[in-house]
């Protein structure tokens, strides 16, 4: 199919939104969308509201060749038009072919990118049973896996996860060539910033701060020692066209704000602290 970026909605009046009017959730959308930049013709598998909005934004703008699902068994265009069939059996097999970039959630994630959505505490008798490993083990050693954490805290960004579902860099290295071969964690996006593993030992690095967030805030909400450069850039600003896509076409109902409330809104301030 043709891979020309779509025309943005004609929404001139709303384009008066200055950068200062950009919400935290919108920076998160941009940071998630950027995960799929340059991926080409692969399946984008986002879990969570903001990653889903980000994937659709990427598909509508700078990564027009991406494939999206309807969350069930259909491959759909950004307007919902079906273009293919992807039942679970094909989805699980497609993972091992590698033409996919998933963004999973993480109840815990550690400095080398080991992820846990299975349980908290001792696996044999967990203090808190969560979902289970789901597809983390197969995803991480077959196709790029990024992560999304809507509430960054020291209980999520932990020294050591309780149950490794998603394989991190140290675990992949210890497991050998079969685990390393297709293993890659492009980025971790949280409500505070963007993180990657572009360090010598593949430990987590603060790649960018969402505007309004300080390094101290991120460090205080992270239980392990993050790699932090002297100068940390800010997550990029959305363009006017991107804001129009997000606000008027992809998420007019404002699901993004429910996942990440804006810290400047007085209503949400109490909930955040």
């Amino acid at each position, binding site marked *: 199919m043709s891979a020309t970026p779509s025309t943005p909605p004609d929404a001139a009046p709303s384009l008066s939104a200055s950068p200062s009017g950009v919400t935290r959730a919108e920076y998160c959308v941009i940071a998630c969308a950027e995960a799929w930049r340059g991926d080409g013709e692969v399946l984008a598998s986002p879990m969570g509201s903001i990653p889903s909005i980000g994937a659709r934004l990427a598909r509508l703008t700078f990564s027009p060749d991406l494939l999206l699902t309807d969350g*069930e*068994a*259909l491959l759909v265009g950004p307007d919902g038009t079906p273009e293919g*069939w992807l*039942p*679970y*059996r094909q989805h*699980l*097999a497609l*993972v*091992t072919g590698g033409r996919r970039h998933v963004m999973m959630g993480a109840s815990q994630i550690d400095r080398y990118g080991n992820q846990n959505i*299975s*349980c908290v505490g001792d*696996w*044999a*008798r*967990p*203090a*808190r*049973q*969560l*979902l*289970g*490993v*789901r*597809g*983390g*083990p*197969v995803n*991480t*050693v*077959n196709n790029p896996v990024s992560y999304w954490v809507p509430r960054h805290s020291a209980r999520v960004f932990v020294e050591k996860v309780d*149950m*490794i*579902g*998603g*394989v991190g860099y140290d*675990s*992949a290295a*210890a*497991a*050998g*060539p*079969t*685990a390393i*071969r*297709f*293993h890659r964690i492009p980025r971790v996006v949280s409500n505070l910033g963007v993180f990657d593993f572009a360090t010598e030992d593949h430990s987590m690095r603060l790649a960018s701060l969402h505007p309004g967030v300080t390094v101290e805030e991120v460090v205080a909400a992270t239980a392990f020692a993050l790699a932090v450069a002297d100068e940390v850039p800010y997550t990029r600003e959305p363009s006017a066209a991107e804001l129009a896509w997000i606000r008027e076409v992809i998420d007019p109902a404002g699901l993004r704000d429910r996942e990440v409330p804006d810290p400047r809104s007085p209503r949400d301030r109490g909930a955040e602290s």
Partner: protein
Amino acid sequence: MGDKTMTADEAVSRLESGTTLGIGGWGSRRKPMALVRALLRSSVTDLTVVSYGGPDIGMLAAAGRIRKLVAPFATLDSIPLEPHYRAARESGSLELMEIDEAMFMWGLRAAANRLPFLPVRAGIGSDVMRVNPGLRTVTSPYEDEATGVRETFVAVPALRLDAALVHVNRADRAGNGQYLGPDPYFDDLFCEAATTAYVSCERIVDTAELTKASPPQTLLIKRLHVSGVVEAPSGAHFTSCAPDHGRDEAFQRLYASMPWPEFAERFLAGDEQAYRTAVEAWHEEQR
């Protein structure tokens, strides 16, 4: 062609305690709940259950029927955490073989193909290996063309089933099963991996009826894998069974919030007809 129709109670009467039971569907989608409810009415227990888990796992665990569970997750989809599964795990009352979604699929595939295992690039490097010390690896007899390396893979053991329970949209009396929703899930694979399989359906129709309005690729399950056919309208309730019925979200919320003994007493004390009546009465009360 033999007539394999039977009631849900007859189907579960053929199961023995201690059996290894596969349950089709996925999460809170097209689960054979009428068969699970029949199982709850029976005395069958000490089960090893193999499932992409949903409320089937929750109910059987709450009723104390599961000795061991093989699953990559248990979820109600719109409610992420299955409450009774959680309770069972947190009380340590459930033996669990926790494997990845893809490992699970290849384990069923191995069983269906009468292989002892299939090699997968999954599990390696994760704690799935730590919590399943019985999992073995296998080294490729071939050098990789690109790397020259003989890679080592996880050998997922065959998930062989004594019996499988699945729910589909239509079936004929001989056991040919048809799905009409967007996803077949793994129901055919569960039946192929099992010694005996019981298929419930929204409606039993004549064989010729199956392909009158639907293409032949909707014929998911072949009768040679099927031992019994059960007509069970709304047999997936409260899970979804597109396009016949969606998930009963309100009732699922009730299930997830009500203490199990109360739920079981109000909705599961009688037969399937009594269940449907009790559900309707509850919905009436909500108006």
